[in-house]
């Protein structure tokens, strides 16, 4: 009797085991990417990766893609453009991944564009800015809400001109992303006859911004457009607070990367007040779609143990959305054929937790969904305040708007 029970049990285990092992024995679908996990972009990179990992776990819980488990193959690119070409060559030629996601940010992504174009590979972009404009790869799809190249600068300058701004100062970091932003800002300013009275490019590793801000202030600009990277944004705002920027300034900000991250926002606290800056997702009613709340519930729990950005608004939901788009495309085409997936992505609108996404021919969003928002009423050392609405009032786009610009900049700071 005992023996029969044992055998029966063993057979049951074998049957169940056989069923699940049949699924498990199918090779997983490998998605390869590099991600900045050290260096200046690591804060964003880790949050983005967590978003992608949450999607992987969700999709695997639903049975995977094409009945196969999804596996991520991830390497640290140290925020460096020099690391990514070798990593992506390894992902394709050694690891033999099925699909590629780009690393977070423009700088590490730019050098891999020629490679993916040459090999005819699909690349899901991850918050790069205009890396495909010259390469012209037709299998590139950026998850970021940027939209047409000039829309970012145009929306900021729209607000600035409405506030009475007539000339502009441009302060930009000497790297790919910020330079691309500056380029479009110069173009838009030229088209609108806005003279540029100060135009400086600062190098990476600049320690102290007081001297630069003094020089900027001396130019007496109305509009100050800043395109900076995370390590510098805090230094610039601190120097602005200490040195002052002058009463002429109607609007300040635009393209400061870093002010979207909880640690930086918490550190800067009230220094943020008045700054008008771009953002991608904010906890406002109009920005919740199917699955958004559930995603943030999971993210908030996992962010603590992963020691990443506790808010995760800027990148994490877009990492998840990138996975959702691949999930939809693979499900619809029922294959991993990269050309077929690219065709599907190009021709359809995709429902994601950050709203519907449709691509134009260059692989960027058809319409910009980049927010311009003004910091208001921010207190020092309080991360939780950013979870409630109203701390960043959305000024653009109109359909998501939650308030009007307070100007001049000095008045908005108080």
């Amino acid at each position, binding site marked *: 009797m005992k023996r029969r029970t044992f055998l029966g049990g063993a057979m049951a285990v074998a049957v169940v085991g056989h069923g699940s092992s049949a699924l498990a024995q199918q090779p997983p679908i490998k998605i390869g990417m590099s991600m900045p996990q050290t260096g200046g972009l690591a804060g964003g990179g880790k949050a983005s990766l967590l978003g992608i990992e949450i999607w992987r776990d969700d999709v695997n819980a639903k049975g995977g893609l094409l009945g196969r488990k999804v596996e991520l193959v991830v390497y640290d690119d140290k925020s460096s453009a020099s690391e990514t070409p070798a990593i992506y060559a390894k992902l394709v030629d050694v690891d033999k991944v099925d699909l590629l996601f780009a690393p977070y940010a423009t700088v590490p992504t730019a050098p891999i564009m020629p490679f993916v174009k040459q090999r005819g590979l699909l690349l899901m972009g991850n918050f790069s800015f205009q890396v495909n404009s010259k390469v012209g790869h037709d299998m590139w799809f950026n998850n970021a809400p940027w939209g047409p190249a000039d829309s970012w600068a145009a929306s900021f300058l729209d607000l600035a001109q409405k506030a009475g701004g007539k000339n502009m100062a441009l302060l930009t970091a000497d790297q790919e992303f910020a330079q691309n932003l500056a380029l479009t800002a110069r173009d838009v300013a030229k088209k609108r006859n806005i003279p540029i009275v100060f135009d400086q490019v600062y190098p990476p590793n600049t320690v102290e911004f*007081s*001297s630069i801000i003094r*020089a900027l202030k001396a130019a007496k600009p109305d509009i100050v457009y800043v395109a900076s990277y995370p390590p510098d944004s805090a230094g610039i705002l601190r120097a602005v607070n200490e040195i002052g920027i002058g009463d002429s300034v109607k609007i300040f900000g635009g393209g400061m990367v870093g002010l979207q991250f909880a640690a930086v926002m918490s550190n800067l606290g009230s220094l943020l007040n008045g700054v008008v800056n771009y953002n991608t997702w904010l906890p406002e009613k109009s920005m919740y779609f199917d699955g958004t709340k559930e995603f943030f519930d999971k993210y908030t729990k996992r962010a603590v143990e992963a020691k990443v950005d506790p808010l995760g608004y800027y990148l994490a939901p877009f990492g998840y959305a990138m996975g959702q788009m691949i999930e939809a495309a693979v499900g619809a085409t029922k294959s991993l054929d990269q050309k077929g997936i690219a065709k599907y992505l190009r021709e359809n609108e995709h429902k994601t937790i950050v709203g519907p996404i449709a691509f134009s021919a260059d692989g960027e969003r058809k319409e910009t969904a980049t927010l311009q928002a003004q910091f208001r009423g921010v207190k020092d050392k309080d991360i939780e305040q950013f979870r409630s609405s109203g701390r960043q009032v959305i000024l653009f786009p109109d359909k998501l708007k939650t308030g009007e610009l307070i100007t001049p900049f000095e008045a908005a700071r108080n």
Partner: protein
Amino acid sequence: MDLLLGAVVLGVLLGCFYAAVSVGLSVSFGLLDVPHVAHPAFLVLASYGVYQLNESYDIDPLLAGLAITPLFFLFGLLAYRVYYETFERRGSDAAVRGIAFFFGIAFIIEVLIILQFGVDQRSVSATYIGKSWRFGEFRIPIRQLVAFAVALALTVLLAVYLSKTFMGRAIRAVAQDEEALRLMGANPVRIKQFAFGIATAVLGIAGALLIIVAPVEPTLDRAYIGRTFCVVVMAGLGSISGTLIAAIILGVAESIVLTLFGASWAPAISFAMLLGVLAVRPQGLLGR
């Protein structure tokens, strides 16, 4: 003219800060010939120590820097002993292999910081951070004035210690002629170990200044490795007062370039000046 004057004032303040973060290296590399490329990583580690004390116990960053100084002294003693036993004692190419050792230490420190604190920027709060003193239209950030005063005091104290005290003179002696010191019955290894401890202890205060001046992140050491070695070599190896002078020259030059000629040129300044000084005085500004 106002801009130039402002640039010079801010440059002097910045220069004194550069002196504070370089003066420990002036002892370890300049006097002891230890290829201490992990110096900026030790500095960033000190900043995180200060951050932890400030965040958890609300201790003023400067006091926190002072509090971790004894720990850093012990850390320095240990680091030198490991370096001596594994590299210096074993032969003439110790310096070359020592570079690999200290690079390894720097990477380990970086990874440990990431594991403990994550990759986000960290900063401290104090009443003097984020405010400025106003002189008419001209404003000076108070955090820079604090860094200036503390850096100046630190450099002067270290210079006095090395020239006036018995142990300080012993450290200078070991730098000049280790063999002669051995013949006098002193143990040069112990003196060098003590000196390395002092050089590391100084980083407690320097780390506090680093996080007072700007937020820190785990890989910030890479931004300082060039600057600190440039200051020490330009000063003349082992010259503490030279370190202060070289750092101020560098700070003023950087500030003027940032203000008047464009920020893109600033990084080239350190090394252009270093090359210029070495071409005229190969031993550095105050080197013997």
